[in-house]
């Protein structure tokens, strides 16, 4: 085989490998577009900004795909990229988060309260009241609620996305649920705890 032909073969192999990597990336990434967009909308509370954030996330993920080793699942990896991109775009949000994390270190886990007339009342709340309430609770609570209840991530996966230990996932989640319930109740004119 001549030198020229060998070089042509190597070039073709490289092109085929690149196409395969791209296909692999698209198979993993594109099915997550709805979930990422929903998460981005809840973070930014602005659909246009969310659209940009998702695009930025995909470009970052694609550029960093060679470094993805499957240590985390692809889903947690790309959610983490999106969240970090969001935090980088909002320095004020980042500062607020540091304060809230400081408070959390000293907090005991909050118990889940059992069924009471009040909780039944919240369970009957309209979806729009719950949606409004999700939008109004502080960002660290909102993001953990979406990751857990909508994305159905495990505590461990949430820990990876948010970069926090499992104990903090548990306490923040418990506090987020109580706050969400209180805000939803207030919207329905019920007692606020």
């Amino acid at each position, binding site marked *: 085989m001549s030198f020229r032909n060998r070089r042509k073969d190597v070039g073709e192999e490289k092109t085929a490998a690149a196409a395969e990597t791209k296909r692999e990336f698209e198979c993993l990434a594109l099915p997550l577009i709805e979930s990422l967009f929903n998460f981005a909308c809840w973070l930014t509370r602005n659909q246009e900004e969310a659209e940009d954030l998702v695009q930025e996330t995909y*470009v970052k993920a694609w550029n960093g795909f060679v470094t993805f080793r499957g240590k985390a699942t692809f889903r947690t990896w790309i959610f983490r990229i999106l969240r970090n991109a969001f935090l980088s775009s909002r320095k004020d949000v980042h500062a607020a988060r540091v304060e809230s994390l400081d408070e959390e270190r000293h907090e005991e886990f909050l118990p889940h309260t059992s069924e009471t007339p009040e909780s*039944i009342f919240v369970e009957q709340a309209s979806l729009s009241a719950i949606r409004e309430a999700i939008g109004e609770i502080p960002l660290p609570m909102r993001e953990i609620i979406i990751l857990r209840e909508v994305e159905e991530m495990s505590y461990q996966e949430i820990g990876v996305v948010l970069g926090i230990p499992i104990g903090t996932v548990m306490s923040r989640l418990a506090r987020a649920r109580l706050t969400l319930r209180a805000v939803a109740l207030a919207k329905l004119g019920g007692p606020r705890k």
Partner: protein
Amino acid sequence: MTCGKIRRKFDQFLSKELPDAELREIESHLAGCVACRAGAASLKRWKRQIRTAGKRFSKKTQSIHQLANLLEAAGRR
């Protein structure tokens, strides 16, 4: 486990994120404790409502093609 400890594990119990031994212990507790059983059922309903409410924003299929083009461009750089 006490009722308080059981209730703190309801969420992980519902998603079966606990070791088998703990899952069995909670199941056995729920079988005999009306209050905890009601609490678990309440959390399950509340979680379902949040899930429905939280799936709010939807992206158009067209955006997938836009993204594919974007990746194509990023790949060429």
